[in-house]
């Protein structure tokens, strides 16, 4: 790890004697420090006045009141879609927990009352503390039952760990 300085010089094929560090010589205007101070003051006052008179152009967003428009494919909080009759599209095929790299989706399946469908989920939970918002679950789903298009990505704060677990109800109704 520690390379001796002499070795380093040798490896580089040179010695300290024939290396010359060229530093730009400050001009006389730079050396008279006061002029550079005035220039610097000009820069700061320009920023201040521009931001004072054109506050709408500042990059800051007044967050809770104003929201940034998200791109349509932004991956936000998950939701579960419904069929035309209002029942969840999910058939509890376990494709999404299998695809999930963070292992945050937990599904409990049950027999479906509908003879055309094999299974339905009775519990479908996503632990947001573990979720990394990669979107693999959405890609894995064969039924288009889970999407991440709610656009919610900040209002997930909670004070207890349990509150970070998204329940099926919550996901169906968002």
């Amino acid at each position, binding site marked *: 790890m520690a390379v001796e300085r002499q070795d380093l010089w040798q490896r580089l094929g040179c010695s300290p004697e024939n290396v010359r560090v060229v530093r730009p010589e400050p001009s006389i205007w730079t050396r008279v420090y*006061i002029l550079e*101070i005035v220039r*610097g*003051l000009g*820069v*700061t*006052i320009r*920023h*201040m006045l521009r*931001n*004072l008179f054109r*506050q*709408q152009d*500042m*990059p*800051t967003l*007044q967050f809770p*009141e*104003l929201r940034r428009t998200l791109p349509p494919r932004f991956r936000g909080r998950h939701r579960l879609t419904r069929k035309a009759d209002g029942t969840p599209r999910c058939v509890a095929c376990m494709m999404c927990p299998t695809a999930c790299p963070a292992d945050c989706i937990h599904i409990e399946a049950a027999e479906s009352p509908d003879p055309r469908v094999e299974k339905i989920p009775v519990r479908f939970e996503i632990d947001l503390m573990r979720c990394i918002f990669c979107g693999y679950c959405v890609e894995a789903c064969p039924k288009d039952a889970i999407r991440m298009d709610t656009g919610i990505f900040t209002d997930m704060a909670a004070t207890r760990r349990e509150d970070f677990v998204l329940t099926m109800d919550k996901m169906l109704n968002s």
Partner: protein
Amino acid sequence: MADLNNHWAVLVGRVALPWLLPLLLLPLMIWLERKASAFMQDRTGPNRAAIAGVRLGGIVHTLADVAKLLGKEDVVPSQVHRGYHALAPLIAIFVAQLLFIIVPYADDLWVNGQTVWMQGLRIDIGILWPLAIGSTFVYAIIIAGWASNNKYGVLGGMRAAAQVISYEIALGLSIVGALMVYGTTDLNTIVQHQQGVVWGFLPKWGIVLQPVGALLFLTAAFAETSRTPFDLPERDAEIVAGYHTEYSGVRFAFFFMAEYIHIIVASGLVTTLFFGGWQVPWLSTEQLRDHAATVLDVLLGAGALAGLVAAVLAGRWSRGLRRHYADARRHEGAVLGVLALGAALLAVALLAGAHVYGLPEWAPPVVAALAQFSIFMGKVLFFAFSFIWIRWTLPSFRYDQLMRLGWKNMMPLALANVAVTGILLLFFGPGGR
């Protein structure tokens, strides 16, 4: 007849005004520091705290801060020297509040043929008072640093001692040239000397007569107030918070207030010594008194115009607020607009009253003093702002750079300034050859 200056009411006023003025400017300074620094760095700065939706661009945050500092636990660490730890912030605030009393804020007011001093303390030593009292501020810092029994505190205190002592020499020498020109140390006389013009158009301010001295004094004043680029005693990145590392709550607030009062005092002194003090450019006190009606018209007209412009701006701003906010803040533009419009109408009404009824006999000196006070406050606020402006522009000095600048650049320059001023005075000054 007894001297009116020693009448108890005048005495109370003379002491209270210079005492309250820096205190009243404090919230404004803190707000300016935050907001200006934010805008210089393309941030929005404080804009949330509100009283019934009125935020005043973030000035309400200062009130919230006061409440916070008063409500905070006053932590006294177990290892400190309790007596000195408690004493240091008191010295700081006490010394800071003693300083502004020497600064004259208007020319002598004529009342019933007598003059009333528009200055808290008129003593012959004048400018020596803030130099002498101000230098004791360093004791507060050293005691605070030492009593904290904290390495960072001690380092901050030692740095403050070295810095203040180094720059006090430059500070004292930089004004010697000015004092030679003015021939007095009394601040009001100094301001009176700065009346008139040189070369026909420039106001005869100290900056014109003593440009080098003014620059040196300004720089040294920065160092004396321990502001960036001379903030070594409390440089966060190196020694946490320097001498006030172990202070919290109200005791910390005392150091904080003292720092800002020092800025205002330094601005006042720079104004008084080198920027004409209360002198209105090109207009003497006599002219102001003689044309009091016109001066009043200009003052009130400017006030009315400013109020109108503010009202229009508030109206335009109000539209955006109504679109964005659903709570009480949506009315802020309307509230401020109505207030500004009210101020403008008041100014117009006073203007009309002055024109209809004419000015009473006592008015001209008062109007002149008001005009001078406004000008003085404008200058002081400009320099107070420039303290903030420079703080957020310049990187701070390294310790060796600080010492080199103080001892090897500023002190010889100040000495040369004294010598050159002396030579010029000898040949061209009053009574010169």
